[in-house]
């Protein structure tokens, strides 16, 4: 670790900056965006009653709500031609500290050195590059969606663990692109904390360690993306590896040593593709999450897999109106002994987006979701969700 720090310090010391490059300091910029929305959601759950053939009980509820879905405030300052800083504060879901609504987060705080198009280095809290959408998933003015594709939609965290699929934070990232002929080859490499962050335990009103927000292990997240761009085509593959303690305590089910699920290796593999052709646009992504452990003869193997993909096809009319069709899919499967737990989520959806001017975007979105759960020893359930959402996204 000390060798790595030493190499980083040497690299920073060696970074050249000419006298003219030290000019270019610009005033502090303050800007941001917010998205307000109205959402009507109908949830219906069908649960088979055990012991009674063809007997299904149905539970349903309807919710309508207005909300300030998201507000982001940015501070940016160019310190020189090559150095710049960026801070991103985010508030979510009608944030109110007195009522304990929503959340307030420090999303990014980094300093960047840019040598040229081939090499930039960011140091500090940042969103790592993974597939196409990860970096911009919370940039609502850039997206035609109101409800974002599954693993990029924070409000779905109650249904499944979205941060299992995408890396949320990194602290050192280098990136850039090379141009062999008409091609542009993009790269990004980053490191960050493992997912084993010390949390505040609200129930017991304490934390495991003295500080919250710190990594409780000596492992790290490492990852990157390699991509190609040519004309209006873009594609890439992404990979991350880290070690998670989220399965600690389940040794009783699977057998094996008491530390069997300490720092279980987790790999995320992603692929992305996007293109524009005349007024049409197409975007697609795939993510697979795998967990790896040593073999333990005589014990139950741990076999958990997660997969996600989405495809969006859209059309832009007169550079203001966008119409799109999209399909989202998730499958999570855990196999142990003779049992299998499985969840499949499918969400076809459709939407419209209208650019009033450079700052204001109106959106409408309809999604029909179906969630099928199968858990061992319990009847399977099917839940359907109808979501109609209207939103206005404003950049200031």
């Amino acid at each position, binding site marked *: 670790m000390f060798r790595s720090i030493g190499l980083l310090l040497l690299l920073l010391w060696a970074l050249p900056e*000419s006298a*003219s*490059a030290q000019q*270019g300091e610009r005033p502090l910029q303050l*800007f941001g*965006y917010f998205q307000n929305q109205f959402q009507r959601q109908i949830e219906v759950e069908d649960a088979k009653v055990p012991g009674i053939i063809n007997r299904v009980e149905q539970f349903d509820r309807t919710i309508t709500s207005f909300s300030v879905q998201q507000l*982001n405030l*940015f501070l*940016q300052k160019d310190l020189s*031609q090559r150095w*710049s800083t*960026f801070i*991103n504060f985010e508030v979510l879901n009608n944030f109110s500290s007195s009522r304990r609504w929503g959340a307030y987060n420090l999303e*990014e705080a*980094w300093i*960047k050195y*840019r040598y*040229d*198009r081939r090499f930039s280095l960011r140091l500090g809290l940042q969103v790592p590059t993974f597939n196409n959408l990860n*970096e*911009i998933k919370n*940039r609502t*003015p*850039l997206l035609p969606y109101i409800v974002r594709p599954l693993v990029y939609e924070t409000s779905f965290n109650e249904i499944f663990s979205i941060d299992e699929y995408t890396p949320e934070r990194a602290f050192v990232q280098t990136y850039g*692109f090379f141009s062999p002929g*008409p091609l*542009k080859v993009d790269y990004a490499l980053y490191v960050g904390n493992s997912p084993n962050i010390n949390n505040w335990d609200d129930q017991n009103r304490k934390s495991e360690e003295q500080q919250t927000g710190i990594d409780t292990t000596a492992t790290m997240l490492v990852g990157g993306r390699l991509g190609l761009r040519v*004309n*209006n085509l873009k594609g890439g593959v992404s990979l991350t590896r880290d070690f998670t303690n989220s399965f600690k305590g389940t040794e009783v089910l699977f057998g094996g040593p008491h530390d069997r699920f300490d720092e279980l290796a987790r790999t995320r593999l992603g692929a992305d593709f996007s293109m*524009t052709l005349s007024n049409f646009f197409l975007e697609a992504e795939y993510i697979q999450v795998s967990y790896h452990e040593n073999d333990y003869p005589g014990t139950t193997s741990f076999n958990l897999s997660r997969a996600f993909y989405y495809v969006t096809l859209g059309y*832009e009319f007169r*550079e*203001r109106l966008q119409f799109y069709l999209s399909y989202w899919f998730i499958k999570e499967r855990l196999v142990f002994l003779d049992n299998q737990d499985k969840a499949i989520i499918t969400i076809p959806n459709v939407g419209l987006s209208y*650019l009033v001017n*450079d700052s204001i975007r109106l959106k409408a979105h309809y999604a029909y979701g179906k969630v099928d759960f199968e858990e061992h020893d319990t009847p399977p359930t099917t839940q359907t969700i109808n979501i109609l959402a209207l939103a206005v996204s404003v*950049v200031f």
Partner: protein
Amino acid sequence: MRVSLQHLILCILVGLAGPHLVYGQVSVIANPSVPIDSLDRSDLLDLYSGDKKIWSDGQPVVVLDLKPRSGLKDAFYKYLGKSSSRMKALWLKKKLSGEGDPPASFENEALLLEHLKETPGAIGFVGFSFANETVKTLLVIPPEGS
């Protein structure tokens, strides 16, 4: 004055075409301090997409744009292979990611030209007749179809 039917029809068609009339030549111009004398489409796209931010002599690249939609602007971005809205989306993504600012935009070619002459490292585009000896002409984009 008698107006012929053909003349009247021509005027109506020109009026309907409005700002989307096929434009003549577009000149890509730069401040005389810019250390190049010509560029190609790929270089121009790199400059306007923010991929190239510094000239070879260390000067920052200052990209200029026109604000209102016009035949000139459409012709320029069509040459780059991107629509005006896609370029705006690209700049907005860079802005909201802390990777750069959109180009400064001007109400008309005269204002753009004036700003370009006063700004070292600046590059912009105007109609062919606007370019003069006080600026460097790096590229002339031919009319569509020629």
